[in-house]
């Protein structure tokens, strides 16, 4: 499909129209200067922020930290009612890495039968991404194949051309949206298309960090001895689980019953992390993964080795959020650098 042009002045009016058809979620800067994805209730009051990377990803919208699965009542009239809630929602302003992460979650939550709750929300979602002309401080999506612009996977993709956005659709729902609100858009001409292409090229040269993902993935595939790496990282790890919680592709969960009174309560699905010792500890106290080293190992190998074997690509999308969040510097960029710096006996010859 051909590209369209949306004048920047028309963005808020368009979003206002879109919001009338359902929920709108977009990055918003709050009064403390933090940018987070939020449900937009009032476009005039909430400060849309397309300049900074949102601190959180879209994960909590499809897979909330505390997700009610069912309510239970064990009084005389025993009951157990599943909870499913979803409404049509347009997500605007997510970045290519965030979108790639959602596509990855689609794969994870469709294993062993589609996850009812996840797909209820997913089917109601329209994803409008915004390519990154200027990648952020810790971004390396160019090396994980998840940005700074995407060629497919989005419903709509916006490219910032200065005073307007270049808009392209990849999925039918995106095209429907463009048709429904067609009077906001004008067709892109050859010049616009060239400008868009230039923006994509320039963005690729604007990365501030060089992170050699592919060499690390290749090295990991050969099962090198990484004991010193695990040791160093596990000593630095403070076991807070922040990396897993902030990661847009970490989807481990646990299920708990939370009593609200003696006779009733809710069953919750809660975020969990494979780096927690309780994640694998068995009822008798035995833990097959006993050391912090092994927990760290599992997390990093899952992202860069096991998922490569299973799905053909790493499940790190290069968003760099784990770099920002970690107290001890146990992040993907450090890990990749350590793997690449490792002197391997086979290569010394």
């Amino acid at each position: 499909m051909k590209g369209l042009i949306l004048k920047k002045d028309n963005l808020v009016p368009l979003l206002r129209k879109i919001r009338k058809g359902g929920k709108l979620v977009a990055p918003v800067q709050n009064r403390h200067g933090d940018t987070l994805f939020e449900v937009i209730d009032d476009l005039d009051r909430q400060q849309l922020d397309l300049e900074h990377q949102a601190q959180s990803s879209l994960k909590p919208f499809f897979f909330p930290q505390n997700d009610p699965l069912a309510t239970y009542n064990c009084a005389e009239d025993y009951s157990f009612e599943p909870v499913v809630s979803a409404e049509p929602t347009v997500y605007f302003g997510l970045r290519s890495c965030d979108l790639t992460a959602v596509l990855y979650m689609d794969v994870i939550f469709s294993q062993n039968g589609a996850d009812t709750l996840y797909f209820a929300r997913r089917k109601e979602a329209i994803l409008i991404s915004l390519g990154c002309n200027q990648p952020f401080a810790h971004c390396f999506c160019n090396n994980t194949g998840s940005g700074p612009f995407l060629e497919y996977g989005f419903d709509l993709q916006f490219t910032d051309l200065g005073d307007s956005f270049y808009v392209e659709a990849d999925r039918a729902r995106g095209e429907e949206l463009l048709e429904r609100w067609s009077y906001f858009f004008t067709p892109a001409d050859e010049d616009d298309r060239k400008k868009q292409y230039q923006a994509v090229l320039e963005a690729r040269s604007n990365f501030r960090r060089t992170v050699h993902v592919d060499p690390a993935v290749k090295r990991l595939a050969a099962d090198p001895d990484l004991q010193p790496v695990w040791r160093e990282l596990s000593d630095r790890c403070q076991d807070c689980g922040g990396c897993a919680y902030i990661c847009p592709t970490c989807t481990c969960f646990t299920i708990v019953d939370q009593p609200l009174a003696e006779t009733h309560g809710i069953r919750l699905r809660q975020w969990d992390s494979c780096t927690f010792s309780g994640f694998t500890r068995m009822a008798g106290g035995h833990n097959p993964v006993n050391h912090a080293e092994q927990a760290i190992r599992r997390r990093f190998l899952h992202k860069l080795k096991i998922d490569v074997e299973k799905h053909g690509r790493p499940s790190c999308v290069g968003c760099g959020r784990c770099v920002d969040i970690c107290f001890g510097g146990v992040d993907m960029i450090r890990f990749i650098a350590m793997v690449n710096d490792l002197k391997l006996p086979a290569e010394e010859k």
Partner: protein
Amino acid sequence: MAGLATTFGSGAMTNSIEEIGRADVILVIGSNTTEAHPQVARRIFSALDRGSRLIVIDPRRTALARRADIHLQHRPGTDIPLLNCLMRLILDDNLHDDVFIEHRTENFNELRDMLYRLDPTEKAAVANVPPAQLKKAAELYGRANKAVICYCLGITQHICGTDNVQTIANLAMLTGNVEKEDTGVDPLRGQNNVQGACDMGALPGVFPGYQAVSNEAVRAEFSGAWGRDLPAEPGLTILDMTHGGGKTVKGMFIMGENPLLSDPTLEKVRNTLENLEFLAVSDIFPTETAELAHVVFPAASFAEKTGTFTNSERRVQMVRRAIEPIGECRTDSDIICALARRLGYEMNYESSAEIMEEIALLTPVYGGMYHDRLESSWGLQWPCFNRSHPGTVFLHKYNFARGRGCFVPAAHQMPGEQPDEEYPFLLMTGRVYHHYHTGAMTRAGNILNRESPEALLEINPVDAESLTLASGEMLNLATRRGTIKIRALISEQVAPGMLYTSFHFTEAPINLLTNAASDPKAKCPEYKICAAQLEKIN
């Protein structure tokens, strides 16, 4: 607190947390920083990444100790001989800072004479540390351009806690590692607002801002503001109250504290609380202490109130109400004001900002702290004397608060209790990463409680073998004060003869066992050392 107040003139962390990341040498003593103060530990990690060196002095091989250039795994309760020995070695190598000592300190001769009299080899033996390692540590710290010392409850929770702190201060002054940026002595405060509580005079002998109740001018000022005569005598310390048997005080109002799990020798605490004529408890969740209360006030959580917290680096920061108080709960200030009114004292504030204005008026170091100034920033660090004062990044710049820093030499003191034939083990207590204090909050959190569901007693593999003990076995752990059941964890974190566990768990209330011996000056109990015996439960 008392220790640093005597030597430097002010009892708080001299640095900002950020400065720790820029020191060349960091000495951590009596602090399991990675578990108890992760935000400080991250600065230590960044310093190490830059090439700084780390010395850890701790009886346990903690995660931080494993990363240290030198780990002195000394015998608990021997901090003073060990630090004195370090100072002697620094003197012998001529690594002390003559000019600093001459211009900025007093009473050096007394310290020097004491150091020259002691025998380093003997002190190393007392501390059970190889002399060669001590020598290396002395050289590392002594030669540092910029060195900081971080300490925590491993220093203060001893019978000689105040002397321990003064000895640390001696070491810093001896080498001139105070008064300058990126150098200093940093007591790490554990709770988000324990510094603030002390600042506000939640100590027996002072009004807000560490102004002594014995000072007549100060008392007159507070009397004027509050419209009541105020006592000139210091109040009681916590153990005087919770171990008083209901005789020292007849009624108590306990806010956000759970002495029935956190104070030593719990039998005495229970006896006291049960004998009170009246007990009121205010907390956000039910606690062991609240079960004994005549009245319980449901308090609002941090998310339901507006006000300030003061953290370890003296930084006063705003918290803002995010949600309305749930159910019948009310904010702490609401509860206090309503209670005061019922007792016949008209205490009315329209907002916490008004309370802050009173604090600024009466507390010189908080003189420039107003909500409107704090609202738009990451907070201000005291001392901050007036509206235009920018706050203070590190203390004692060019001059100690008391004028000159005072060397206060201290000698080794035996702990209140030592292992013997009947109680052969030395038991230390502390915290685990996943729980906060008595677990009133964290044990209600599903994931946190799953991560650390029960108390574990760390025991060295050598001892475990001689007791034919397997990890996970249940034990009877006894001291002269009582017995509890606890699960064993075989771990090389503790040396042979040592045991370690935490006090978070009501199922294994370790403070039934701990010793109420306390520091004569600060009255801080000796949680870190008592003699214990073990028995397998068959």
